[in-house]
């Protein structure tokens, strides 16, 4: 890892100012960025730690909207008892990763096999940054790519509280990332289904399943549907056809468990 200047501001405004300099990068829990820097795939001149910013560490729920600060760790969300989102957070990586890794870091990174993107997209959540709000449908732009601009910080994420929701993760046993993960969320105006781990394009909505489940929220509603294997990830852990098959199996399980 190349050396860098380290700064740890205590407010969002100071962090935004520090990130304005060339080659500066935000540091969340470091669970992705530090390994990446060790491999010299990233070499920022300045790291701006977000871990000292109290206003990014709050969780708040009024029963309608669950707001999770961008600096909240997976362990804190897991311990909060927020239904499917807490269960999802409690199965990210391992305990030590969960004690450092944050929701903001996970969403900024947008790994195609990460868990949180599925929850955010299925919940139609809103990403709040230092200068705007971004709807989930506009936020994810493909593998490791998002609508965030250089130096933009995720301050919090607002999840509308669903009537019912569930996340099913088929773990890749070595990395514990999702080989395929499906988040199903039911709202008064319809059902949303988001899939991670499967597509070359990163997290996506399975709209055919959403329509079927909005008409009838039961696993049988998926009978007759199938997902095209075209564009699914191919690697040594699974073929595109296998992943496409898993999406349907996991969607049915999520509906049954929601």
């Amino acid at each position, binding site marked *: 890892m190349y050396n860098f*200047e380290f700064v*740890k501001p205590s407010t969002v405004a100071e962090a935004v100012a520090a990130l304005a300099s060339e080659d500066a990068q935000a540091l969340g829990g*470091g669970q992705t960025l*530090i390994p990446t820097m060790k491999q010299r795939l990233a070499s920022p001149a300045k790291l701006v730690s977000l871990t000292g910013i109290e206003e990014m560490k709050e969780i708040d729920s009024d029963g309608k909207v669950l707001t999770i600060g961008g600096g909240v760790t997976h362990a804190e969300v897991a311990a909060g008892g927020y239904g499917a989102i807490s269960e999802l957070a409690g199965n990210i990586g391992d*305990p*030590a990763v969960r004690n*450092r890794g944050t929701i903001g870091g996970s969403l900024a990174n947008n790994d195609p096999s990460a868990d949180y993107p599925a929850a955010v997209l299925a919940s139609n959540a809103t990403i709040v940054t230092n200068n705007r709000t971004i709807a989930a449908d506009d936020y994810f732009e493909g593998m490791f790519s998002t609508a965030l601009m250089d130096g933009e910080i995720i301050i919090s994420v607002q999840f509308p509280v669903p009537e019912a929701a569930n996340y099913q993760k088929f773990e890749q046993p070595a990395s514990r990332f999702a080989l395929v993960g499906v988040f199903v969320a039911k709202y008064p105006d319809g059902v949303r289904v988001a899939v991670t781990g499967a597509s070359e394009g990163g997290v996506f909505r399975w709209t055919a399943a959403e329509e079927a489940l909005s008409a009838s929220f039961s696993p049988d509603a998926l009978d007759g549907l199938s997902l095209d294997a075209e564009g699914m990830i191919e690697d040594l852990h699974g073929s595109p056809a296998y992943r496409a098959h898993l999406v349907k199996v996991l969607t049915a399980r999520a509906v049954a468990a929601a």
Partner: protein
Amino acid sequence: MPSVTMTVNGRAVTGEVEGRTLLSQFLRDDLKLTGTHIGCDTSQCGACTVHVNGAAVKGCTMLALEADGAEVKTIEGMANPDGSLGVIQAAFQEHHGLQCGFCTPGMVMAAADLLAGNANPTEAEIRKHLEGNICRCTGYHNIVKSVQAAAAQLG
């Protein structure tokens, strides 16, 4: 160079570090606390597990400067004040929870993290909590037994 101050196993320490100095490097190279092992250095194996403000973290995946002002506990802090093995360490010895011992510091710190929040874990809970700690020798079975025995003794 920036300076860093923290409490390690109850002792106040200060050192000069680079931005890139990892907590695991600071503990081993500067403080000479070489009980914290570096296995993979890629966040996978858990040999470097230590506690920061009471929570288990991978020392190889946290900057030393991020631990400024923190309370850190390492395997050296798990022994009794007279130097004899602490309860969890003794249980590993008694129940054959180690062979080469390379993973053991991380296993003991992860087990202590579990038992701090769950005094009476099931076998499944123990296995789940140790998911981030890899052992090439034991097959895990006796590690689980060791943690169960330590839990029973700590009651």
